[in-house]
């Protein structure tokens, strides 16, 4: 239901109020509403719900895996991109299955429209167009959200997902304008409210490249980058069904010596190099000026031209984010091949915004300072739609569960990238905007995109976001996997001449003894396709994929599982939230301070805190042991 104004009668009390309708807010409000909680989503502009203010794509390495995890847990992002992509591509196909990742170019218009439809039609979910500017907190418990006009809306809990809108400041060269993306109003006072109630506020920065009018680009000077011929989907619930030839391509070009010259000559005019930026920018997503300064020996850099939508003509210049003033941007863009006469529709800009210190959060994403207050997305110092959505989903789920008196959902580092992400946030904190990378996961062979359902769908079902029908389908998949495994273990082939000739033709060694198909598949050169003819039954692609990966990479998977076991031993030793670490004898000062600040939930987490030494952990364990004995 949609309200532009609400009649706030005396008995209106929401279970969960979500502030902000970005990717985190969408997942949080949908999850809470679907779990039967009376939910309100407050957003500055309804038409900006699920906006993609930066790159027009969803997924990619690590991120694509999060999207699948969101799906397995019962979130919306995967389903939504499946309805709105322009192009699908599986990345890292030449590498191992652990790092394969799906990425879609999104139609920004369709993506938003589909998500808005879902939100506006969701039972238990109301949407209010307004600016939240203050919070009412009583006895360190969340009480109400205060709107710009002074209206108070009471709720049992709140999830704050304000993205880059907290004191948003847009920069072009030396120009600095108080604004959110798309000239939207920023939230000017909410971060002051957060500061007042005890949050540490930090300033972060991000940026976005210019958008070019499509008709003014000469694509003949670019290399075409089409989508994959094979069909893919993010969601486990859909079977892909589209015409791969109708996918919209991207294009690749390179910077020219002229581009580099322009940038070098005008470096001090950029907001960054001119010293106009206070916020800390992301290391992994450098501006073009950064690339040219830091990698001076590179003669050229790749630039991708990506379509944003079928409904308008903007082309996103991936790899060309900058904070140069507009006149310089014109020159820079025109120095690119095929863009000599390009017309800039939107200029690139840098944006600064307030974020909280994520160390002030529990692994449930509830704050340690104010009970029933959750935060998710860029406000926690992350970057990326997928990272935001993953947190939003967990925050929404946990806000709803707390109302029911249930334990929060905390995913472990060996269970999900979402688990790695949140654990990093609440254990290590954030200095520059945090992007999830595969290298942040210790056990990435276990955290594959293909097995996200196997890892997480049971959680999704137990939480209540995966329905019975869907879950039955999943259980069938599990049964089929077992069935195929058994079959492969029982079917034997014998060293007949015909068989051996066949194996030789596949570049595989002759058989001397009979061998099970299971063992035959262990040979690196033997694909499932080659042995299919020995099996009568038909199996789904997904089933085969799981079985084959588990057979082929068994050795490596066992190695990782061994490491996981070690970690879980430490995670079993729980630490109480009430534990005052200054009472633990012989702890180093820094350790006391860090442990009291972070309040790890178990020894495994305590171990990952920087500044806490193994010796401190010894003292802690000793203290726990003595207390237990008393």
């Amino acid at each position, binding site marked *: 239901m949609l309200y532009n104004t609400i009649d706030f009668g005396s008995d209106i009390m929401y279970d969960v109020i979500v502030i902000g309708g970005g990717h985190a807010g969408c997942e949080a409000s949908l999850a809470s509403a679907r779990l039967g909680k009376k939910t309100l989503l407050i957003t500055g502009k309804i038409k900006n719900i699920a906006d993609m203010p930066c790159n027009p794509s969803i997924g990619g*390495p*690590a991120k694509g895996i999060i999207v699948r995890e969101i799906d397995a847990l019962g979130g919306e992002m995967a389903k939504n991109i499946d309805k709105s992509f322009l192009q699908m591509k599986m*990345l*890292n196909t*030449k*590498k*191992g*299955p*652990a*790092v394969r990742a799906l990425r879609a170019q999104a139609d920004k218009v369709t993506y938003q429209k589909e998500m808005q439809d879902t939100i506006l039609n969701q039972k238990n979910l109301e949407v209010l167009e307004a600016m939240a500017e203050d919070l009412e907190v009583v006895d360190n418990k969340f009480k109400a959200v205060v709107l710009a006009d002074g209206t108070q809306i009471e709720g049992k809990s709140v999830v704050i997902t304000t993205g880059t809108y907290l004191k948003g400041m847009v920069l072009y060269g030396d120009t600095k304008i108080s604004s959110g993306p798309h000239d939207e109003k920023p939230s000017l006072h909410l971060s002051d409210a957060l500061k007042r109630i005890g949050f540490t506020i930090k300033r972060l920065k991000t940026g976005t490249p210019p958008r070019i009018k499509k008709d003014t680009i000469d694509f003949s000077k670019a290399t075409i980058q089409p989508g994959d011929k094979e069909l893919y989907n993010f969601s486990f619930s859909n079977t892909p069904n589209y015409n791969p030839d109708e996918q919209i391509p991207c294009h690749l070009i390179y910077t020219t010596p002229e581009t580099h010259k322009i940038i070098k000559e005008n470096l001090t005019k950029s907001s960054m190099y001119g010293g106009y930026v206070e916020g800390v920018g992301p290391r*992994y997503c450098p501006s073009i000026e950064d690339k040219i300064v830091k*990698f001076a020996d*590179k003669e050229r*850099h*790749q630039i*991708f031209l990506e379509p944003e939508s079928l409904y308008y003509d903007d082309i996103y210049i991936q790899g060309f984010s900058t904070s140069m003033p507009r006149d310089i941007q014109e020159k820079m863009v025109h120095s690119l091949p095929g863009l000599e006469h390009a017309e800039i529709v939107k200029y690139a800009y840098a944006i600064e915004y307030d974020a909280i210190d994520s160390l002030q959060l529990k692994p449930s994403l509830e704050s340690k300072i104010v009970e029933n207050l959750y935060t998710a997305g860029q406000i926690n110092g992350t970057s990326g739609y997928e990272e935001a959505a993953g947190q939003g989903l967990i925050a929404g789920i946990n806000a709803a569960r707390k109302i029911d008196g249930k334990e929060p959902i905390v995913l472990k580092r060996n269970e999900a990238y979402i688990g790695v992400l949140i654990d990093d946030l609440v254990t290590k904190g954030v200095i520059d905007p945090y992007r999830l*990378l*595969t*290298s942040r996961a210790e056990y*990435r*062979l276990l955290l594959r995109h293909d097995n996200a359902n196997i890892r997480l769908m049971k959680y999704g079902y137990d939480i209540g976001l995966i329905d019975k029908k869907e879950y039955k389908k999943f259980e069938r998949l599990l049964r089929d996997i077992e069935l195929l495994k058994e079959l492969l273990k029982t079917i034997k082939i014998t060293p007949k001449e015909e068989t051996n000739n066949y194996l030789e033709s596949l570049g595989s060694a002759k058989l001397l003894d009979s061998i099970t198909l299971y063992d035959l598949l262990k040979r*690196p050169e033997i694909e499932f396709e080659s042995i299919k003819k020995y099996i009568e039954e038909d199996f789904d692609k997904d089933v085969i994929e799981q079985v084959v990966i588990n057979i082929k*990479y068994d*050795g*490596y998977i066992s*190695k*990782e599982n061994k*490491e996981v076991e*070690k*970690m879980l*031993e*430490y995670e079993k030793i729980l630490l109480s939230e009430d534990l005052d670490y200054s009472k633990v004898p012989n702890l180093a000062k820094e350790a006391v301070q860090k442990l009291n600040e972070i309040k790890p939930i178990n*020894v495994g987490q305590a*171990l990952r805190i920087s500044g806490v*030494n*193994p*010796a401190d*952990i*010894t*003292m802690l*364990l*000793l203290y726990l*042991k*003595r207390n237990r004995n008393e």
Partner: protein
Amino acid sequence: MNDIIVAISTSLGKGAISIIRLSGEGCIQLVNNHFKGKNLTKVDSHTINYGYIIDNSKIIDQVLISVMKAPKTYTREDVVEINCHGGIAATNKILELMILNGARLAEPGEFTKRAFLNGRIDLVEAEAVMDLINSKTEKARIQSVNQLEGRLTNIIRKFRQELLELLANIEVNIDYPEYEDIEVVTIDNIKDKVKEMNTSLNNIIKESENRKIIKDGINVAIVGRPNVGKSSILNKLLGENKAIVTDIAGTTRDIVEGSITLNGIELNFIDTAGIRNTEDVVEKYGVEKSIEEINKADLVIFVLNNNEELTNDDIELINKLKNKKYITVINKKDLEQKLDISKYELNNVIYTDTISMDGIESLKDKIIELFNLEEIEQNDVDIFTSTRQITLAKECLPILKDVEEGVINNVPVDMVSIDIKRIWTLLGEILGENYSEELIDQLFSQFCLGK
């Protein structure tokens, strides 16, 4: 925390007995798998059991094994202590055997750490234990770390750095698959690096083991049929009047060692007692006993009698010597030659006689030559100085092999990187830079290895 840890509990070096201690779930079974004697899994707790440690039915050493079942043990876990002969070779061999079959080399102080974690002792006690273990070993430990200075540290550091760069590069390839600016790590990059590392590490290990021989001595077995003159050769080597043979009688573990120093290197003669005591009487040791000694020895002095024809026993021994460093001593050259060895390719043949010192100098020269003693003295080579370092380095070898195999089998680089990361961690442990993921090592690392 329950994996099996193992360490040599007694100080490394010469001693009548060495104790190898294991702790953790399944350690009794593990030892029993390599034990000839009573079934250790069935014996009462806190009993001492006599038998042999065997490796694929080959006897490594005669031992006494203490079996102590949880919880009344030092660590509150199942504990096994293997009392073996004090020779470096046998002790290391048993340690290696346990590590190769599932035990993990204990970190410094890990037994005490477990005792502490399992609630057996508290921290104060732990510190007391630390004091007990005394500063001498502590110094020795620090010293052994310090000895790993200079070039070798740099070599290991360089390896680690290269691996780290490789890892970082692989990661970037994964996270930024479409960026051409970044060099793509290929199988070839990995193959070359790993090959180089494997060769280099292998050389260092080999050299280190050589040098350990220099430091700890060379175990020499004198074998041959009764009455060929083993005893006289031994006595001449030891020097008739200053034989430093010691004898600890009264236990089944009697070990008698004689040793001499050659070019500063110690030669330890195995089972000198056997030779001395039985030479004049009927020798009770058969060929089997000799073979056992051959296996234990770094160097075999194989003695034949010039005055007798070759027997089947001799031929059997000759066959066993093929892969060993050995010297053939043909004794009693002053007597009539009945021996004909022309059918056999025997190495390093030296003639001696029973009365004069003839040939003994050539024997000594031969030993020096065989072990390159002079050369090693002069060369300043890079070596690991502690068993811990050698063991860690050796642990890298099979993983390096995994990497190579992975590369050959076209396993994707991101999989191979799992192994590369592990090697990187192990090399770090050699440098003492990170005891990976070990929870509370800092404090306890002040302990010497094993306790």
